[in-house]
């Protein structure tokens, strides 16, 4: 019977004697981008802490699988890791389940003011702090600035405008392989995000003020119908139903689409030296459906949290501080297209020089909306995804999908105070 040997902390309280190596295990997702700064950050940390070894371990690619990994292992006790990279939406759930170390007393009062308020909100549950924001995300509309300029269009303010522009440009560029609007329609969390942004654009939401799911079912069905319609009309290609961020990013990067909905990381890859669309990409706020509402991107990103039962809480917190420091976040944006959670960095002159879109993205982040911050969000999302996918794929009518979703959620959350946030 052996737990992960790595987590066996040597006791570091023998001063003078050669201390056995203490190992911290850090579980994180694969870092995209060619200049992954993590090894260097870890090496620097190990240099500052002799006798400490940090073992970074990558998780499977999809966030859903990552979460299942975390849940199964944390639920079972003795998970064998100390520091975790968590998607923002997992923090309330993990905190409620009692798996995270309470950091409230360990962080200095003003320490978190440097981060985006919404990021800090997402790391807070029950009035206590459970994680430190690491990198930030917000849903953006990417567009081919060259094509829009050619036809005299400004970035669309409404989805109807977007569709009209896409169709006009495609008709004009007949002969080129050009899709209209690429978004993520595969059955996973990304679909949930796209649907949420659609709901917000139409003035409704997933949860009502009293916690009811789909407070306006008719409007929710409209949004799904519109998304399905994009595929049926050909504005979005058929493979949208199997598309995730990377699939859509690559297609747009090959110049095969006019519009793309994606996260900020894509910008760096699209502006890479060998990218066919270098210099032709613009970034804007997501459109809206109705007058009066505001198209808002979904905020996201990841936080660093510490396992509650870790043998080395102080050391783990040091590592978290090191990885979220200003210097580390600078390296992350430069090398791995991981956008900082420290607001000031978005206006740092040296960074803005290499990433001119930073101030704009900061503004869009501040205008973004978080997904419902509740421990039950993941339960909701995993139960909703099949229904949303069924509607988007076209095997279920949007109205029925919404109705079935409400039913399933009503049953699963029958004991919980749905809508419980803090």
């Amino acid at each position, binding site marked *: 019977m052996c737990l*992960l040997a790595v987590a066996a902390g040597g006791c570091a309280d023998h001063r003078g004697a050669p201390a056995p190596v203490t190992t911290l295990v850090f579980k994180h997702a694969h870092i995209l981008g060619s200049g992954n700064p993590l090894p260097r950050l870890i090496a620097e940390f190990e240099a500052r802490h002799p006798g400490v070894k940090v073992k970074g371990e990558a998780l499977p690619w999809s966030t859903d699988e990552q979460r299942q990994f975390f849940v199964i*292992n944390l639920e*079972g*006790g*003795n998970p064998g890791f100390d520091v975790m990279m968590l998607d923002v939406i997992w923090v309330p759930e993990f905190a409620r389940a009692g798996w995270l170390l309470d950091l409230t007393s360990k962080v200095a009062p003003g320490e978190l003011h440097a981060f985006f308020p919404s990021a800090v909100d997402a790391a807070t549950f029950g009035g206590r702090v459970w994680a430190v924001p690491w990198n930030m995300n917000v849903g953006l509309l990417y567009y081919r600035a060259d094509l829009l300029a050619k036809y005299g269009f400004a970035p669309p303010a409404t989805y109807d405008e977007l569709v009209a522009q896409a169709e006009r440009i495609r008709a004009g560029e007949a002969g080129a392989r050009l899709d209209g609007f690429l978004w993520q329609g595969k059955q996973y969390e990304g679909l949930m995000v796209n649907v949420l942004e659609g709901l917000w654009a139409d003035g409704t939401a997933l949860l009502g003020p009293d916690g009811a799911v789909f407070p306006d079912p008719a409007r929710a069905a409209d949004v799904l119908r519109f998304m399905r319609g994009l595929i049926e009309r050909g504005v979005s290609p058929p493979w949208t139903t199997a598309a995730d961020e990377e699939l859509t990013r690559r297609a747009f990067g090959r110049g095969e689409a006019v519009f793309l909905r994606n996260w900020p990381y894509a910008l760096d890859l699209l502006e890479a030296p060998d990218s066919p669309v270098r210099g032709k990409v613009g970034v804007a706020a997501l459109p809206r459906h109705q007058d009066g509402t505001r198209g808002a991107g979904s905020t996201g990103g990841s936080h660093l949290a510490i396992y509650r039962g870790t043998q080395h809480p102080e050391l783990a917190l040091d590592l978290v501080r090191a990885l979220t420091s200003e210097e580390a976040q600078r390296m992350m944006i430069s090398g791995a297209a991981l956008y900082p959670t420290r607001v000031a960095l978005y206006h740092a002159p040296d960074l803005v020089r290499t990433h001119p879109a930073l101030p704009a993205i900061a503004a869009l982040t501040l205008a973004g909306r978080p997904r419902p911050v509740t421990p039950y969000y993941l339960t909701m999302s995993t139960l909703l995804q099949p229904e949303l996918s069924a509607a988007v794929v076209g095997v279920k009518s949007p109205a029925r999908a919404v109705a079935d979703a409400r039913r399933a959620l009503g049953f699963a959350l029958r004991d919980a105070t749905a809508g419980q946030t803090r």
Partner: protein
Amino acid sequence: MSRRAPRRGRQWARDLAVLLALGLYAVPYFWQVLTSIKPEAELLVLPPLLPSHMTWEHYQAVLRQSLIPRALGNSLGVACLTTVLALSLGVLAGYALARLPVPGKGLILLGIVAGSAFPQIATVSPLYLLMRGLGLRDTWTALVVANASFALPLVIWLLAGFIREIPEDLEQAAALDGASRAQVFRYVLLPLVAPGVASSALLTFLFSWNEFLFAYTFTATEASRTVPVALALFPGIFEVPWGDIAAASILASLPPILLVAGLQRYLIRGLLAGALRE
């Protein structure tokens, strides 16, 4: 056996055709082998079917940078221990049911057979809670116990059948010569039933090696993760690393294939005995 014996040439041609057809049937596997030695750049382009040159980069990546080697070790250990446990318990139980006047034998046998119809999905949640409660998560023990218990019904049934087939005269003669029951069991019966034991052992090993549901649920880290789970959780970066996955798949399938190829006779015997004994 055949009605009109065809001319040798026709038989030869016919047999070749059948072999070719079966070779085609196995093409999915050969394609995977091919994929595992195809250079990364040539993977996503069809045609051409054949690679321009063989490369070991995928195997190197899998053996050096992935968790597959450790998983192979785990699978091997778990499968061996499972087989030993299942057979130890199964031989005793099979002997008891075949030779000894156990009360309620018919009922017990029926119960054991019914136990083999248990769906794993039904027992996975209580077993998960049990393993968690006993602190056995992420250990070989949990998998060995679970796998062996699931393999037991078939093993008992097979061995009871094999033992019953052996005439009792030899044992009775040995007993008359003064041998104790244990001695009779060890020196007379066991050698005779050895082929049956081999078949059961082979089937149990294969079952344990291929087992996925329990392994996926009970294991947490590479300390106990078996090969099917490691394969299912293979990390991808941008897109799926098909070449690496193919290499990992081939490595994962080598032990079962080698066993089936080498011990084909015992495998067939075991499969048939299980089904034909009705």
